[in-house]
């Protein structure tokens, strides 16, 4: 492998890695607060992409399901905003109703009414999906997780799997089998850095990643809500005694993780495109990234994501024995299992020896 090629592979690795990093971040948020592994995280990413596509192109999508979903999203957005504002669930219903009426009208109008022929600028088209997907995460938590009786860890996992199936199915119904792409943010496709070619959209992805990471960090460490989230992760009962409602925290964690997923989905669709099935693989990669970071640390997930991306790229590049492009997806899985085993082993040893 030549030096130029090596650089190129590193660049590709960073490109992919940034995506995995953000998805892994989403896993970490939910796991850190609730100890649940959200199998639907990949689907959130897919939804982000699909929603941005839908807003940008306003193509033929079947009306009924989208209208219903749009209404639900609007309601959830409203409830979410209300939550962040006043943190009182009792007024949830009322505010949901209000925002349902207010929020859904422009959304539906835009999709099917007056403004249907207008093309929404890509920037806004990428921002709105964040809210929409956050709404989906919100709904998913309320309907799926909170309502569960006697939730066992394994049971909750299966519930998130069910949710992932449902989301994927609905996406398939609405957007069909084809791959969808949204326009690039920047006209220019690639630029050259050193000896390698970098896809410009990646710069946007990286920028998104940095912004999300910083915002998240600030949120978690500076704001009251963020600190409550962290407290909940460490000790839900203790946090409860301090007046923090763990269910609320879980709800916010889900919405947040979904928002992050949606963001990355929206920002990466111009480059890689999205089908209704893409969520599965991305979710898996994100999981590996998160596992490298130990599941609780967002920074770990980010580093893990990059390691994963670069590792994969290098495996493709090296092309020796079993380390070639055929097996590029296999090795991350193997590493995942090895890491899981190592970590559990270490924990068990520490416990035994005190």
């Amino acid at each position: 492998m030549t030096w130029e090629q090596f650089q190129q592979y590193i660049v590709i690795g960073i490109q992919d890695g940034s995506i995995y990093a953000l998805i892994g971040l989403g896993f970490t948020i939910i796991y850190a607060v609730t100890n649940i592994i959200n199998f639907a995280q990949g689907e959130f990413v897919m939804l982000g992409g699909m929603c941005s596509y839908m807003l940008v192109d306003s193509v033929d999508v079947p009306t009924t399901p989208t209208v219903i979903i749009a209404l639900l999203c609007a309601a959830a957005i409203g409830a979410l905003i209300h939550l962040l504002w006043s943190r009182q669930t009792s007024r949830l219903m009322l505010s949901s109703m209000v925002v349902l009426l207010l929020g859904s009208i422009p959304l539906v109008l835009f999709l099917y009414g007056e403004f249907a022929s207008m093309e929404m600028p890509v920037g806004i088209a990428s921002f709105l999906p964040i809210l929409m997907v956050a709404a989906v995460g919100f709904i998913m938590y309320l309907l799926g997780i909170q309502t569960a009786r006697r939730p066992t860890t394994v049971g909750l996992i299966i519930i998130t799997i069910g949710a992932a199936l449902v989301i994927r199915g609905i996406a398939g119904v609405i957007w069909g089998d084809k791959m969808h792409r949204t326009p690039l943010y920047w006209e220019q496709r690639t630029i050259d850095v050193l000896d390698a070619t970098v896809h410009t959209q990646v710069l946007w992805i990286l920028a998104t990643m940095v912004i999300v990471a910083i915002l998240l960090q600030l949120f978690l460490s500076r704001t009251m809500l963020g600190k409550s989230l962290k407290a909940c992760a460490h000790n839900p009962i203790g946090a409860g005694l301090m007046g923090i409602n763990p269910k609320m925290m879980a709800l916010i964690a889900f919405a947040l993780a979904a928002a992050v997923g949606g963001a990355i989905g929206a920002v990466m669709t111009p480059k890689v495109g999205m089908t209704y099935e893409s969520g599965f693989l991305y979710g898996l990669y994100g999981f590996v990234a998160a596992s490298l970071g130990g599941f609780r640390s967002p920074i770990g997930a980010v580093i893990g994501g990059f390691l994963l991306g670069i590792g994969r790229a290098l495996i493709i590049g090296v092309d020796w024995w079993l380390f070639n492009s055929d097996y590029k997806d296999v090795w991350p899985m193997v590493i995942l299992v090895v890491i899981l085993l190592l970590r559990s082993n270490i924990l068990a040893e520490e416990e035994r020896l005190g």
Partner: protein
Amino acid sequence: MSRKILSQWRLLLIPVVITFMALVPFDWFLGQYKYLGTVIGLSTIVTVGLCLFMGYTGQVSLGQAAFYGIGMYFSAVLSSVHGLNPWLAMLIAACVTGLVALLLGIILRLKGNYLAMATLAVGFVVWKIAVIDDMGCTGGPDGIRGIPYLSIGSFEFDSQFKRYYLVWGFCLAILLISQSIVNSRIGRALRAVHGSEEAAESLGINVFRFKLKIFVVSAVYASIAGSLFAHHQLHASPGYFEPIDSVYLVIMAVIGGLASIWGAIFGAGAVEILRNEILIHYDKWNMVILGLILMVILILMPEGLFVALKTGYQQEGVFFIPRRIWRLARSLYSGIKGFHRRKIAGSLQGEPD
């Protein structure tokens, strides 16, 4: 409603069901569903293993389809390319799968969340290896053809009709074997592990070893089903055991009841009928409905649908309706009756002069 009548009715049910199932492949009965019936039988075999595993270890396996695939491929390759006796091939396939499960068993040391992911990873890797076909023996994405039929002496299982009975014969045998295992000391140990791992350990039951054993058993069951499928479809390809199929298997297990053996028929039947007959007309809604079913069951009845129905019935339910719903229905009914009566009374009294 007298429970005595109902329990006698249950005894009658068994021969009725058996006769029903035995008559299915006849064209004058439900012959057009021969293939579906066979598929249900195969799925039941895998599902029983999964139900037992999930029920007694309290963990999820999202990679069961991988063992199905290994059984399928080994049977296919050994009997077609190397010309081995299909029965021998099936035996070897089962042994290989058991060995693989044994080696993979170390992942059972992982906790719930992580084990689920590890099994998903395994399911994915096995599938990918079959697709990649690095060493040219799995036939890549197209798979292997030219697999012979199973045969006993000169009697070949060359028709759908015959294979239906073959598969269900195996299925019945496996169900009975599982039942006798569960009733034995092994079954008690498994139930002990499920009930309280700490207490089980204190009685000398090696928890890890039992989890491993049930894992291997479930893998072998899946392998047998896979082998039978290879000699049924006469085609082995990665398309038959994609990672999503493992999820469908979990749905079957959940519907059937997590520690239930006979419920597996119910679960497998429900999902396969939904997938192949009803929802095939609705394309993607397939996934949505199945996902919703999965969620609803896990939310309301974590121990599985069939088991919940069974316990509901045992707790003074009527037919199969669980007590809760029966009581709800009755209170609704009396509420409506009462409301109606009050309305009549009120209209007599409350009339303004």
